[in-house]
């Protein structure tokens, strides 16, 4: 799952997948702006068949946060 998250973040931020790792976030990936963040939510929900809460969406600004939220949702399922 983590590798696929890296890929999707990279695609939506239009960077190379090797540029994305566990520590990537809106702070250190220049192209990861608020618009990319929204598209990322849409793409991740579609990819993993989950639905983030509005609270979670507001916090999805790093790979770490994404992984946490996904694990929470997938764990519930």
């Amino acid at each position, binding site marked *: 799952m983590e590798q696929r998250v890296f*890929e999707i973040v990279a*695609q*939506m931020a*239009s960077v190379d997948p090797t540029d994305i790792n566990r520590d990537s976030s809106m702070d250190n990936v220049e192209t990861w702006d608020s*618009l990319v963040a*929204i598209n990322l939510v849409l*793409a991740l929900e*579609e*990819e993993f068949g989950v639905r983030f809460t509005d609270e979670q*969406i507001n916090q999805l600004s790093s790979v770490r946060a994404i992984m946490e939220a996904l694990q929470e949702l997938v764990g519930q399922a």
Partner: protein
Amino acid sequence: MKFPSLADIQAALNQADLSGLPPLNISVLRNITMEPLEPYLRYLALELGLAAEIKLGGFDTVYQDAVGNPTDLLGPDTDCVLVFLRLEGLSPDLARNFACLDADGLAAEEARIAEHIKAVVEGIRSQSGAMILWHGFEPPVNPALGIYDGQTELGQSAVIARLNDTLRRIMADTPNAYLVDMATCLLRLGAEGFYDQRLWHIGRIPYTRQALQVIAREEFKFIRPLLGRNKKCLVLDCDNTLWGGIIGEDGISGIALGQSHPGSAFRELQQEVVNLFHRGVIIALCSKNNPEDVWEVFDHHPDMVLRREHVAAFRINWQDKAANLRELAQELNIGLDSMVLVDDSEFEVGAVRRLAPQVEVIHLPVPDAVNHRDTLAGCGLFDTLTLSQEDRRRGRMYKAQVQRSSLKTRFQDMADYLDSLAMTAEVRLADPVAIPRLAQQTQKTNQFNLTTRRYSEADIQELAQAPDSDVIYLRLGDRFGDSGIVGTCILRYDQDRAVIDTLLMSCRALGRGCEDLLLHQALTLARQKGCSLAVGQYYATAKNAQVADFFARREFVEQPDTTTGADREFHLDLGREIPRPVVHFKSIASEIGWPKP
């Protein structure tokens, strides 16, 4: 509806080489966040081979962008302006505080919105002639007055419907401006699939990703015809597409087509095909069948909705479909890129996508037959910005044109055939050796004989020698041998008139141009004798109806009164050169003279 995922779309966009692609300049005026629409627009543009250049106006600055100081948002290069003026921003009262408004307040608000829309449209038009796609107001999912809302003209649903009517009128009055029906988009997904309240509250994005894709696809249904990229011809497979089963194996009583399941799904698909026909789409068939099997279904199956008269052209054979599609395109005189093939077979779909990639292919797999009508009705590939009376007739017009051109094809084939015969013709004035045969011809020829005058050898002899008449004949040969004398013509000169006393042709020589050559030679001879008028006669018999219009078809003018006692009389002015008929002889030897081309 199965659409590619956003991740797939973004991946495709990241990989695409847009350099060299023509641009599609889209400007977006909006009072909501529409940035997430961008990847879908770019992707759909790429499908058309275009590089979308998307400019977004400021958030909720629609009026300023349109009416205020010109920005670089709108200009001569702009192809399309998308306007999202959502009611939530335009009139929070109507959208959210509806129940608080009284009748006067409602009327005032409706009038204000109409004026606002007009001002924005005029403002856009003052800056650009680009296509305006104005997104209509969405009907309320939970109308403000509850169940009573639907009962009154003053309900929220009625007010919003009226606003959409106003929009429709304004767009109709504005050149190149159209209403995108958001209610239809909403209907396709349902409110739950259409709205994302999380994104609305977080980022003023009202719509789900599915909704964004549906909206973008709806917009491209307008952009396609704007660019002349809408499809013109629907090409249908037969077995398991127009009906369930295989006619060659199941027979006419075994195929699924009718009022009940599973045949009803195929019947409904056919109904949609006929709808498209009446919208001006050319319908063609391309199937691997024995033609007689297919036509048996068309002619004799009681539940066929699609009829022969809807079908402009067909290729029913065992040839590969890509080749058949090329032939159909040629026959219909349209491009492969104007065609859409509908087929159940994965093999055929794959083959056509590879061998004729210009053709759009819709795969309708049999297990999903119940949905095929909607797939075809919703594809939007054939959509047009207007629907004229001519559009409604086009299917028919194409059928007529194809009939004419297949006639031309047959003509062409015939010309090639005649050329291949290497025919030789000899035209001579009657000579002693020929006279017995010429007399015999006048006595025996019944069908291709304009006057059916019977002459003896002595008569012919006399006609040939007299100064006021001539007898000519035509001898035909071809690669298979000599056909001998096949045609005779007798002219009688009466001052400056040349009366065609006899014109006859042996049946075996018909359809090879001999009659036209012989007539040309007779007329040329009459001119040489100083005649200024040729008089053609027709005496009707029980057998010569086929030549009743022979002269009329060759520029002779029928006379209201006959001067010679014939049933019909035709005149041709010999004052000008007799045009050389189109004939296919390898060589012509003529005593009278045959003009070089």
